C-alpha cells in the first residue's frame, strides 16, 4: 500500500506544479464541447504534457508508447486528476474508446500505426456512429462504403461528431452490404482518415449557442483498403465492443479525465456561498433535504463502483452496475446541475457572459450541456431499455 501512497503523492505534486494556468476564456466542460481553437489547443497541450510526464496510457504496452505498468497506477492518476480538478485531456475517443479497441482486437500494424498518436494527442480521433436519421438506432446506419479496387468509397453523413474539426481519424460504422441477410450483417467498421478529399466537416451549433459537435459529410471519399477493421460484415460486433469501452463496461482505457468532474461537493460549496430569499441557500431546509438526496445518490453510485470489484457482491446480475452506469450517472448529473441553478434564486436566471453570473454562467451552461450525455451515446430512454432487456431479461419493445 505504501508504495502506491507514495505514487499518489508524487502524482498530486506533479499535477499541482504543472497544471496549466486558468485561461482568460471559459473552458469547455467535456471533450464533447470543445468549440474553439484556443480551447482545443489549451487542452491538447495539456494532454501532451501529461503524456510526456508518463501519466497517460500507463497500463498500455510500452511497444506502442504506453507505460507498461499496472492499471492501479493509472487509476490513481485519474483519481488525483479528478480530486485536484485539473483540466481534462481532449482525445477521449482515442484514449478511451478507439485505443482500447485497437489494443484488444487490432492487428499489429494497426497498433503501431495508431496508438502512439492517440497518447501524444498528435492524432485526435472522432466517432462516426450516429446518423442524422438514426439517433440511437445505430444498426440503421445508411452511410455507404463501397469497394473500388483496393480502396473504399464513402458516401453519406455522420452526426454528433465531437472534435470532428480537429480529428485525424474517425471510428466509422458504414454499410458495406445493403442486401445482407439482416441489417446488422451489412455493416463494417473502419479506422478512417479525415484528411482525404470528399470529407467535409460542418460545425453544429448547440443549444447553448456554442459549438462543439460537427456533422461529417462523405462525398465519394476514397480511403485505403486497410482502413477496414476486422472483416467485412463485422461492423456491428465491433461497434458494440466499442460501446463497452465507451460505457466503461469493459476496462483498458488509457485514462485521463474526459470532463471537468462536477459533483455534489461543488454544489454544496455553491450552496454555502449563494443566497436565496436573502439568506445562504444552504440554510433552507428544503434545499438541505435535496442536497442530502443528491449526496446519497452520488455516494451510492460511487459505492456501486466499489462493490462491482467484488464478484461475490454482484453475482446475481454481474452486468447490472456497469450497464446502468451511464443511465445513473448522466441523469444524476442533469438533475444536479438543474438544482444548482435553483440554489441561486433570482440570480439563477443569468447566463454565460453576465458579469454577475455565478462562475461566469458555468452552472447554467452545464445544465444545458448535460443533455449531451443523457442523449448522446444512446438516450436515457434507450439505456433504460438496454438495462431492462439485457440485465433484467425483460422482453424487447
Amino acid at each position, binding site marked *: 500500500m505504501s508504495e502506491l501512497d507514495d505514487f499518489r503523492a508524487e502524482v498530486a505534486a506533479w499535477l499541482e506544479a504543472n497544471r496549466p494556468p486558468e485561461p482568460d476564456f471559459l473552458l469547455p466542460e467535456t471533450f464533447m464541447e470543445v468549440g474553439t481553437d484556443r480551447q482545443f489547443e489549451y487542452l491538447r497541450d495539456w494532454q501532451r504534457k501529461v503524456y510526456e510526464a508518463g501519466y497517460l496510457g500507463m497500463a498500455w504496452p510500452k511497444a506502442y508508447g504506453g507505460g507498461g505498468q499496472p492499471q492501479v497506477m493509472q487509476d490513481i492518476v485519474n483519481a488525483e486528476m479528478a480530486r485536484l480538478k485539473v483540466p481534462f485531456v481532449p482525445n477521449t475517443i482515442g484514449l478511451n474508446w478507439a485505443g482500447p479497441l485497437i489494443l484488444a482486437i487490432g492487428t499489429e500494424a494497426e497498433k503501431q500505426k495508431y496508438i502512439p498518436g492517440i497518447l501524444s494527442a498528435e492524432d485526435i480521433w472522432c466517432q462516426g456512429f*450516429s446518423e442524422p*436519421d*438514426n*439517433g*440511437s*438506432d445505430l444498426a*440503421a446506419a445508411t452511410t455507404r462504403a463501397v469497394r473500388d479496387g483496393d480502396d473504399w468509397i464513402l458516401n453519406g453523413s455522420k*452526426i*454528433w461528431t465531437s472534435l470532428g474539426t480537429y480529428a485525424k481519424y474517425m471510428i466509422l460504422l458504414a454499410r458495406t452490404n445493403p442486401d445482407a441477410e439482416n441489417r446488422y450483417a451489412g455493416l463494417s467498421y473502419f479506422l478512417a482518415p479525415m484528411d482525404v478529399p470528399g470529407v467535409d466537416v460542418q460545425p*453544429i*451549433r*448547440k*443549444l*447553448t*449557442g456554442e459549438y462543439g*459537435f460537427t456533422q461529417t459529410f462523405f462525398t465519394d471519399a476514397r480511403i485505403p483498403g486497410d482502413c477496414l477493421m476486422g472483416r467485412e460484415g463485422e461492423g456491428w460486433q465491433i461497434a458494440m465492443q466499442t460501446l463497452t469501452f465507451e460505457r466503461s463496461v469493459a476496462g483498458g482505457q488509457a485514462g485521463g479525465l474526459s470532463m471537468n468532474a462536477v459533483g455534489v461537493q461543488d454544489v454544496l460549496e455553491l450552496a454555502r456561498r449563494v*443566497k*436565496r*430569499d*436573502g439568506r445562504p441557500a444552504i440554510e*433552507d431546509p*428544503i*434545499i438541505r433535504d435535496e442536497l442530502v438526496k443528491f449526496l446519497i445518490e452520488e455516494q451510492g453510485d460511487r459505492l456501486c463502483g466499489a462493490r462491482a470489484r467484488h464478484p461475490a457482491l454482484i453475482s446475481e446480475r454481474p452486468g447490472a452496475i456497469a450497464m446502468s452506469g451511464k443511465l445513473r450517472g448522466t441523469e444524476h448529473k*442533469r438533475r444536479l446541475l*438543474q438544482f444548482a*441553478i*435553483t440554489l*441561486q*434564486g*433570482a*440570480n*439563477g*436566471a*443569468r*447566463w*454565460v*457572459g*453576465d*458579469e*454577475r*453570473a455565478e462562475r461566469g*454562467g458555468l452552472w*447554467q451552461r452545464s445544465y*444545458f450541456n448535460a*443533455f*449531451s450525455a*443523457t*442523449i*448522446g451515446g444512446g*438516450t*436515457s*430512454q434507450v439505456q*433504460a*431499455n438496454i438495462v431492462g432487456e439485457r440485465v433484467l431479461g425483460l422482453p424487447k*419493445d
Partner: protein
Amino acid sequence: MTAVKLKATMTFSEEQSMLLDTATEFFRSKSPTSVVRDLMLSEDGYDDAVWREMVDLGWSGLAIPEACGGSDLGLAAAVTIAEPMGRWLSATPWLSTQLFVQGVLAADDALRSACLPAVAEGAIGTVALCEVDGDWDLEAAGLTLRETGSQAALSGTKTFVLNADAADFLLISGNLEGAPALAVLDRESLPAGALHRETLIDDTRRSFELILDGVQVPDDRLIRGERALTALSRIRNAALLLISAESAGGIAGALEVIVEYLNTRTAFGRKIGSYQGLKHPTVDILIGLERTRSHVYHAASLIEAGESEEAIDVALRMAKAQASEAFAFAGDRAIQFHGGFGFTWECDAQLYLKRALWAQYAFGDAIHHRRHLAEALL
C-alpha cells in the same frame, strides 16, 4: 383549520374570450419562431411595429382606468394577452409595462395622470425592484431614497430591470427612512451610463442593471407609506399572474413541439411517440398544462371578483409554483425527447427551457412560494 378557504371560482366573460381569440391569432401570426430568433439577436429585443399594433389594440392600456385613457379591463383580461404571448415566445415590452402600470395605480391621482395616459398611448414602462442579492422579498429593497426639500436622491443598484433601455418610465423601489417607497424616473432623468445590459438565460428578454448614485427625483414622483406597500403588492400580484400565464402558454408551446416531433420521428422502426417512455411523460406535461391554466384563470377570477388579498395571494402563489415546475419540466423533457436534434441551437425546444428558467426564478420559484403557502394554509 386553514385561515384561507380555497374556492373554485372560475369566471370567463364573453369579452375575455374574444380577447383571448384575438391575442391568440395575433401572436400566432406575428411571432413564429423565425421572428423570435431574429429578435433574440437584435439589439432592442422586440419589434416596435408589433408593439405599436398592440398599443393600437388597446393592450398596453388594458388595466388603465378609462379616466387615464385605458380600457379598465383589469388584470384578468391581461391574462388573455400574456398566455398566447408565452405560447409564441413573443418578446415585447408589454410585461414590464403592465408591472409599471400596476405599481403606479397605487399612486395618487397626480402621478397616475402624469404617467398612465402616456402608457395607454404607447409609452413603455418598467419596474426596478430586484437587487443583486436576488432576494424575492420586494419590501426588502436596499436602494436609498433620501429627501432633501422637494426632491429625493436615489442611490443604489437594481438588477433584472426589463426593457430598461426602451422604457419611457422606470418605477424604482427602495427605502425611504426605513420604509419601502418607490419613485418614477423618466427616461430623460436617467443619468448617462446608468444602465448595463445583463445576459439572461432567456435571450428573448432584455434586462439591465441600473446603478443610481444620487439621481434627483421630484417629490411628486414618489410613492410612499401605505401606497408604496400597495404598489409593491399590486406589482407582485401582477407579476405572479402574468408570468404564470406566460408559462402556461409556454408549456402549451413546448407540448406542441414535442407532440409534433413524437409524431414524426422514427426510431427502431416505430414513431417514437408510440413508446410509453416518451408518451407517458408527455401526458404528464399535458396534465401540468391543464393544472397550470386552471390555477391561472382561477387566480385571475379571484382578482376580478375583488376577493380578499389573502385569498388572491394564495391563488397566485399556487399558480406560480405550479407553473414554474410544470414549465421547467416541459422544457427539460422537450430537449431530451428531441434527441440529438434537441441539443442543437436550431431546435426550438431550448427556447422553451430557457423561458421556463427565467420564469421560474422571476418573482420567486416554487420552493419559495410553497413556503409562503405553508404559512398561509397550514
